[in-house]
């Protein structure tokens, strides 16, 4: 079991990021300099026996990419093009060059559950109520129907099998799901080694033991909903159970994303992520304050030049009266231009503070 990488049935290597601690299984020929997660130039090959991760087994299921890299690149080009005062590094070609397909792990838990449970079940029922209106010395009565919930206690036993209850395999799972979104697990396929010819796979940092409490929550929610159905209730609350799990089976599922990154003026890395199924791109589109300032300066210089010309015309106006009118007109244009000079800085500031 020393050479656990051979279980992956293809030529893969282990790499780790010194900055964010993510561990990847990847094709050895494709080891990049920068981490596809945090963008730090701290990715290094690791010795698989000396740095054995907490969980090393290859996945059983994979959700294939439904957005190919060409579509992803087009998205990135459009993203870069539409950026205002984009930092020098936020360029379509650069983003595309750094585009990295990446698989992230998720647990699917199957289990037989035996439990005693208790809950309050809510049953909808309707009541007849009345509203009355008094106007012009007369009453007008209106009958209205209102839906109310009758809560009744129920207890029971449960003996069920649950499949594919989701549990996180990464500490960061909740944050990733919040940012990237959910994945459709219908298209899952058995793991084939060729999925790793280009893509990286992130290794779980939460092994089954660690993720089991989260799996129990998912199992309880499934059981809770089934108990509600069993009692033919419309609502359920205060669900408590004493479960006993047997035949627990864990399946590692990989789901697909693309990552890339760019650096802002200060050299700070910003990651962009593309959902591998829907193609949705998430990440911050920052504006370069440096560029914006340059733009403002350029407009400011034009304004200054206009001021000077209008001043010269003013002097000329002492001789030729026509020049006075032109001087006034130019002065107005100069003022408007001076005000406009602030626009690039303001726009960049606004973008950086209101883009997510």
């Amino acid at each position: 079991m020393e050479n656990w990488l051979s279980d992956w049935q293809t030529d893969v290597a282990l790499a780790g990021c010194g900055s964010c601690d993510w561990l990847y299984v990847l094709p050895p020929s494709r080891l990049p300099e920068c981490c596809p997660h945090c963008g730090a130039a701290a990715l290094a090959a690791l010795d698989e026996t000396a740095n054995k991760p907490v969980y090393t087994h290859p996945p059983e299921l994979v959700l294939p990419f439904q957005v190919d890299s060409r579509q992803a690149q087009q998205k990135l080009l459009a993203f870069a093009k539409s950026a205002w005062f984009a930092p020098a590094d936020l360029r379509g070609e650069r983003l595309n060059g750094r585009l990295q397909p990446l698989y992230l792990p998720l647990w699917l838990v199957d289990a037989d559950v035996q439990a005693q449970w208790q809950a309050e079940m809510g049953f909808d029922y309707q009541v007849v109520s009345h509203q009355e209106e008094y106007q012009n010395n007369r009453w007008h009565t209106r009958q209205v129907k209102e839906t109310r919930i009758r809560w009744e206690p129920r207890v029971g036993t449960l003996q069920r099998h649950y499949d594919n209850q989701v549990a996180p395999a990464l500490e960061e799972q909740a944050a990733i799901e919040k940012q990237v979104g959910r994945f459709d697990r219908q298209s899952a396929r058995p793991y084939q080694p060729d999925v790793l010819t280009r893509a990286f796979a992130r290794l779980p940092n939460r092994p089954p033991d660690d993720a089991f409490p989260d799996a129990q929550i998912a199992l309880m929610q499934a059981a809770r909903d089934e108990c509600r159905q069993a009692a033919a209730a419309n609502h359920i609350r205060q669900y408590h159970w004493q479960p006993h799990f047997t035949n627990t089976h864990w399946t590692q599922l990989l789901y697909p994303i693309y990552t890339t990154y760019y650096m802002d003026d200060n050299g700070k890395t910003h990651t962009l992520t593309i959902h591998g199924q829907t193609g949705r791109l998430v990440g911050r589109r920052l504006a370069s304050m440096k560029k914006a300032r340059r733009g403002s300066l350029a407009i400011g210089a034009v304004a200054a030049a206009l001021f000077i010309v209008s001043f010269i015309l003013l002097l000329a106006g002492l001789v030729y009266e026509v020049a006075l009118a032109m001087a006034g007109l130019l002065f107005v244009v100069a003022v408007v231009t001076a005000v406009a000079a602030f626009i690039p800085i303001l726009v960049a500031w606004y973008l950086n503070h209101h883009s997510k």
Partner: protein
Amino acid sequence: MTPTFPPPGYMRTETAVPGIEVWMPKPPDEQYQEVVQFHCPQCDATTAFSTDSGSLTCTHCGYYEAPQANLVGKGAQQFEFTIETMARVTQGWGIERKELACNRCNAHVTIATDMLTHSCPFCHSNQVVQVKAPQDVLRPRFLLPFQVDADTLRRRTAAWLGNSWLLPKDLQQLAHGTQFTPIYVPAWTFDAQTSADWKAEVAHTRTRTVGIGKNRRTQTYTEWRWESGRATLTFDDLLINGASNLSPVLLNQIRHVDLAQLVAYEPRYLAGIQAQAYDVSLDAAWERARQTMRAQTKEACQRQATSRHMRNFSMNLDFRDESWRYILLPLYIAVYHYNNQPYQLLANGQNGQITGQRPVDWRKILLAIGAAFLPALLLGLLATWLLVAGNANGNVVLFVTFGLALIALIFTGITVSQAQKMDDV
């Protein structure tokens, strides 16, 4: 989680998912017995029970069973106006009649279903016969037990019959022979909260000074100002009579009952007592209750205005937390005869309040009126005589005569109206 499974008092119920068992609390035991016989544990008589304040007393052998009232009081369960209830209610009780067999003499009798209990007209057996209501929810669930016995009532009746000089002297003796028949009469109680938003133009009297110089004067005028507000009222156990054949005037006089004495309905309470089913349906009674509630809410709204003088009053009222109860109230009915004329008495079975018709002795009244006018008549004659004789005091006597006649007139009015009240209700 309960350590024992299933917890006591739970029963298994239907499940829609295989592998999941569902248990629910057992509904309270409500075995509905159509016919209940009360056997005296001492002499085994089945017919000789009388009921006072929830206890059972065998009138045959004197066996007494202490009351075992399940006192629920005002906390007695209330029901909501669910769609199902209202749908059932509108189907009505109907006027169906039902055939019953007497378990003692085998007589077959047909009775209207509006009697919940019935004593066999042939052998007077006191079997309690309950007519199964077509709607389970509209059976009486609570009742006020009788707390006054017939003897007490007879004493009270004697006093009541003798408490006015307008009544014949021999009336009081009749009280001792009066038969008081206990009967449970139906009633509805309603709870609700009303909240209403109102607005109206309210009149304010203002004064202003007009004119100049000598014509300067103050004038009053009305200024209309819009006012608005919100009133919230809570109604607790508004009582509506459930029987249409009882005189509402008489009932009104003895309607004050203490609902804190409500007990859970048990057939035992109906042993030997007739009970009447409602014929004022739930929705009809609820409509009457709502009318009372909305009128009171309107009154509360109008009291909020700074003046009672207003116009264009309008309000929007919303009912909330509506609930109802169907209960039985204890009542005694008695009929006594005086000069071959029947007179009806009603008594509140809880507090013994009595109301009813009393034969007024009109001869007594005529005599009294005559006696009242007599001084005026005599003085009138005296005044005439004095005036004819040219005596100056005649005028004074005439004034006194008018005064006395006026007093007699007032006395007559009061007496006749009182007598009327006693006589025909």
